[in-house]
């Protein structure tokens, strides 16, 4: 049982490392949002499950944190993506831009 929890903890730490590396190395802000929130969400899940396996009494609190992260993190990253779209320059390699049409601009298809 200890071995399983150690494996989960190392997977979580590795995904945290990959999330930080993606934050540092990705070329523009939308890619950084993708790397920084998705990879660290999986890392947090794995690490908290590892802590919950190592200490079975705490499994309820650990599940509470996991559920809260699973709800709040996509909402936060979506709000950040919309704020980035509205506040800074768009990269010039966009393939499709649906939000521009939703916000009242005219349709332009770059495909």
């Amino acid at each position, binding site marked *: 049982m200890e071995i399983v929890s*150690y494996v989960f*903890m*190392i997977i*979580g*730490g*590795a995904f*945290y*490392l*990959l*999330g*930080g*590396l993606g*934050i*540092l190395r990705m070329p523009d*802000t939308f890619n*950084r*949002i993708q790397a*920084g*929130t998705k990879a*660290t*969400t999986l*890392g*947090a899940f794995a*690490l*908290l499950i590892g*802590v919950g396996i*190592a*200490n079975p*009494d*705490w499994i309820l*609190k*650990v599940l*509470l*944190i996991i559920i*809260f*992260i699973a709800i*709040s*993190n996509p*909402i*936060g*990253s979506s*709000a*950040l993506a*919309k*704020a*980035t779209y*509205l*506040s*800074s320059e768009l990269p010039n390699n966009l393939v499709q831009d649906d939000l521009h049409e939703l916000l009242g601009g005219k349709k332009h298809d770059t495909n």
Partner: protein
Amino acid sequence: MINIIVFSLIGLGVLFAVARLLIGPTPADRVVSLDTFNIIVIGIIALLANLFKNSLYLDIAIVYAILAFIETIVFARYLEGRHGDC
């Protein structure tokens, strides 16, 4: 031993996120790296709970998760530039 390995991996992740926080060209980059940093800190608090065998640290992690979520939403609203209406 395992704790040292896991803390080293997470420490490198924190280092990269803080580097982006310092050099980020736009304010949106800094907010994104701050969000990543908050999630990493939740994991560090959970690992400290495991290391010290004290479940009170998990309560701190819950409160930190809630505050980090509110902080992300507030910074996103601020970056959008519409301060009053919501």
